[in-house]
């Protein structure tokens, strides 16, 4: 890995020697180190099975859900090591958006936005709640579409609206970094471009780390790009540089459509 490629000061997140193994010794992510820039969109690309989603999920310690997954290395979020942090604190700081929109089917749109508070038992005053809901929904440009149906179930929305609702749910918790795992792969082109515009706008206030299998999406909206292959971080740099002048042969082959 060519670390000299990127020199990021005051990174929002430092990944140090991260390895993730399914079962014993079967590594999906191998010794990855990288610094993630604040208030920027960083894209993680690579063919399916390259470990990009696995790495993203490690940042949120999602792997603790499954007992056979082993994570090594350290992750420093905003100067704090996340390994022994209470999960509630970590997940407040790192919001996650998934491949398929997954609003809670039993909750209304309103309650979905403040689900992080509601499900954790954090009581807010009605005024505070309304404020959080409105701000989050405005942030994802969903407010005007749903302000009259806030108390309907979130599952009645279209796929793209649902995904924006899920982003709002993450924003409501006021995270440092937003992790998105192929957030548009289940959406149509119109909904996709809405989400892309949204992400570009959101980077003013948040740091965004996004897995995508869609190269042109990475080229369109990301500032920095990573290319992963077989669990390794092959190349990391400014998106413009990587797309115009890839350093590694494998990156070049991927970008020119030779594989993936």
């Amino acid at each position, binding site marked *: 890995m060519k670390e000299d490629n990127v020199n990021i000061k005051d990174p929002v997140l430092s990944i140090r020697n991260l390895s993730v193994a399914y079962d014993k010794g079967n590594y999906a992510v191998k010794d990855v180190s990288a610094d993630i820039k604040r208030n920027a969109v960083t894209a993680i690309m690579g063919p399916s099975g390259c470990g990009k989603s696995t790495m993203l999920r490690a940042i949120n310690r999602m792997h603790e859900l499954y007992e056979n997954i082993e994570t090594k290395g350290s992750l420093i979020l905003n100067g704090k090591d996340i390994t022994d942090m*209470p999960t*509630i604190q970590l997940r407040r700081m790192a919001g996650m958006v998934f491949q398929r929109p997954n609003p809670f089917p039993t909750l209304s749109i309103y309650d979905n936005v403040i689900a992080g508070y509601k499900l954790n038992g954090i*009581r*807010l005053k009605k005024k*505070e709640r309304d404020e959080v809901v409105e701000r989050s929904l405005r942030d994802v440009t969903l407010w005007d579409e749903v302000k009259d149906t806030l108390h309907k179930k979130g599952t009645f929305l279209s796929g793209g609206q649902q995904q924006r609702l899920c982003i709002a749910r993450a*924003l409501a918790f006021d995270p440092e970094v937003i992790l998105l795992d192929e957030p548009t792969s289940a959406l149509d082109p119109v909904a996709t471009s809405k989400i892309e515009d949204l992400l570009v706008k959101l980077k003013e206030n948040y740091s965004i780390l996004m897995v995508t299998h869609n190269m042109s999406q990475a080229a369109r909206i990301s500032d920095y790009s990573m290319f992963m292959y077989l669990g390794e971080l092959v190349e990391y740099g400014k998106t413009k540089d990587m797309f115009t002048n890839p350093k590694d042969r494998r990156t070049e082959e991927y970008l020119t459509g030779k594989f993936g």
Partner: protein
Amino acid sequence: MKLGKLPAKQFSQLLKVHQMNSDKITKGVLLLSSFVILFVAGGMIFSLVEGAIPALKSFGLSFIWSNNWNPTEGKENYGALPFIAGTIITSVAALLISLPLSFSVSLFLGEYYRGTRIAKILGPMVDLLAGIPSIVYGLWGFYVLRPLLIDLGLPNQGFGIFTASIILAIMIIPYATSLSNEIITMVPNELKEAAYSLGATRSEVIFNVVVPSARSGIIAGYILSFGRALGETMAVTMLIGNANIVPDGFFSTGNTMASVIANQFGEADGLKLSSLIAIGLLLFLMTGIINAIGKFIIKRMG
């Protein structure tokens, strides 16, 4: 337009909850509850064996093949053969009677009329057969079926193996169909279409494509329904005649393991009670083995 900070006080309370390892406690509770089932099952075997020991001590293994059932004080002697025989004969007969019926129903629901309005009426009706209490089947058998069979010339006032088997057959149909119907529905259309394109008729497709691919599921369904038949109590008790003899034919009276327990438990104590518990243990083992075989076949199908 960043949002305000979280309410600090509540947040620190939350952190405390986390530090108390609530996740570990939760996992522990889940684990503990799964022990309840193991404990219940283990305790059942233990209690049945413990209760059966006096009888097994007195009669040894011959308890299983002795056909002597004599509660007279001083000459007490108990053997389970009449009941084992009665149980197996009624259950096998019930299975044979139910076979064409449940097979037809599965074809009706899973093949001929799959997803149609009529199937949506017939399906739940068949399921309802499983909802009718055993004692109601018994009443119906006693007051409706039995007189009919007497008119047809059945001996012993219409009581016996045959009458009990018919009622049992009706009772177990839903258990056989619920599984085989599901499996038949799952036979891929491509397979069937391939056979149709070669000019096969529907019944030929059923016998050459549908049944062979759904075979294990159909068989597993019958095995599970057979397991049901072994343990049915009330309806059989009301119809089989309750004679503690090894039945000598289809129209003979007899008794099953479940019905002898139900019938004689009231006045049982000492060695007789232990013998009834021993019969319960045998019945438990028989149904356990049959069900395990059925589940094994289902598991192997994947």
